[in-house]
């Protein structure tokens, strides 16, 4: 379970204070599929980073399974992130010098040896995202959509319980978008908690809950 208790985040931008998130308290239950929408610059990515522990809130607490993640040391928080959370970013986030399979396998480097999944899992995930046989290719040999699917496979490698996706369908063609959403729904049915940020109102209907972020305030969609 993800809990945000009075979480607030402000930025300094152009000499002005911008409120990315005004004291928000809310919970994402295990197995939920929450879709967060909002206009550009509304603070959607910040909201996701706060949940994932990629940015420290100015005030309030972020708890994962009851543990305040900012009470942990950097090493503990990093390990927790590695074990429990998978990230999908809106841009191509593959390491250009590694092959597709190496990119997918990369998160295992940060797990204790006994917990690291075998390479076979990476190949299975590539198959699951429709990229069987692409393991030896380099990222630049793939299309934008294919790279995004590799990033999804990488996010799933360590069997995280939480998937945080930031505009995962950005720049994807319609068919790839549908395939990706079908995969997310399938993962959610299997019990994975998903928080997805998107600007697409159409995709919002795919989640079990829809939050709207506007002016730093989070509201539940009707």
């Amino acid at each position, binding site marked *: 379970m993800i809990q945000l208790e009075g979480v607030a985040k402000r930025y300094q931008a152009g000499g002005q204070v911008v409120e990315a998130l005004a004291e928000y308290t809310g919970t994402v239950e295990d197995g939920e599929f929450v879709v967060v929408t909002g206009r550009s610059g509304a603070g959607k*990515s910040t909201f996701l980073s706060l949940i994932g522990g990629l940015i420290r809130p100015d005030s309030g607490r972020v708890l994962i399974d009851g543990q305040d993640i900012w009470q942990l040391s950097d090493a503990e928080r990093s390990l927790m992130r*590695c074990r429990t959370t998978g990230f999908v970013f809106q841009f191509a986030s593959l390491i250009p010098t590694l092959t597709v399979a190496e990119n997918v396998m990369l998160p295992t480097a940060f797990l204790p040896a006994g917990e690291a999944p075998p390479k076979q899992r990476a190949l299975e995930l590539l198959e699951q995202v429709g990229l069987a046989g692409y393991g030896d290719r380099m990222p630049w040999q793939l299309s934008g959509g294919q790279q995004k699917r590799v990033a999804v496979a990488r996010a799933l490698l360590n069997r995280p319980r939480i998937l945080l996706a930031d505009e995962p369908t950005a720049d994807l063609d319609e068919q790839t978008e549908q395939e990706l959403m079908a995969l997310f729904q399938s993962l959610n049915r299997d019990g994975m908690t998903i928080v997805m940020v998107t600007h697409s109102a159409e995709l919002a209907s795919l989640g079990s809950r829809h939050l709207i972020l506007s002016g730093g305030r989070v509201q539940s969609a009707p």
Partner: protein
Amino acid sequence: MRTGRAAGALLRLSIFNLMRNPGRSAVAILSVLLAAGITFAGGLITMGVNHAVGVGMARLGADLMVVPRGAVDGTHTALVMGEPIAFYMDGSVVDRVRAIPGVEAASPQVFVETLASAACCTGRLLVVGFDPETDFTVRPWLYEALNRDLGPNEVVAGNHVLMTPSEPLRLYGSEYTVVGRLDPTGMGMDETVFIPLTSVPDMVERSRTLAEKPLEIPPGSVSTVMVRTAGPDKVEEVARAIEETIPGVSVLTAGQVTQGVTRNVSSLMAGLIPISVGVFLVSLILLLVLFSAATMERAREIGILRAMGATARQTVLTLAGEAILLCLIGALLGVAIGVGVYGLFQDLILYSFTLPFLWPSLVQQALFAVLVVLGAGALGALAAAWPAWRLARLEPHYSIHGGNT
């Protein structure tokens, strides 16, 4: 275990990243190569000169050299570089030196200057006649190596006197047999042939009829008197007493020879050190700029790694590791090229600055090379530390998204 596996993966990323930017890597390597090469060559010269002076002065075995007034500089040059030289004073000086309190032993030597191309097989040769009866500089070695005195027409050669063992040494029309070769000292005695003093008059006599240019050595004269004092604390006192008691002579102490060499090393280093410091500073600034740019370029990648579970410490290590790796490669190449360049220009450097040189032991050279390479690694770490630390302190969200929310 987690740390080790992560370090391996991050190191691989660093290596791949270096290969992805060959131009930037080459510039970094080149700058470190220059700094390391100059540092290593400079250090090697200093070590080699000090080693040569240490070995040479120990081999010389004398605390003082008494020479005719005005011959100190020439003696210094002959002693250090083996430049042939000839000067003479009356042989009675030897007994007068012996009579001075504090003198434990005194032995005369006669310098016979050879023509540049008259020796058997080398262009530069100093022939030194020594007195086997009183000598304490050549004889100890002779007894260690030969277990006997030199016979008639037998000589001992310095290590750099080139000739084949079966070939007789022809000097001023006389033939000599080389029965021993001294260990290298890096100093003038490497270019010297030692003959018994009693052979010198014969050589002079025969040169009158057999040599193109006869030797002009006044009968009964000597070039120098080697002096051993009763103790190190007596050296200055005895030197002063000799100069005060015996007119027309000067005294050269072992300390003066060492000081002279040190002065020459200093004048060489006076040119080399500013260059080294300049190259070092330029390298440091260049590396700072390069690694700052490289770090900023990889900010998003680092942010993504952190999102996957890399710690801040690991990201610092991966960025510093990249810099250290580049600097180690540059330093290894620099050391290798430094040795090569020094090997090529060794004679030019040493003769220009009147310096003796004896290669330090391989262990010393290896240790110094390791020191230079490690120093370069530290330079890399220093140059990368600040940008890496800044990036590591940045929360992953900002690394990934820049200033965007």
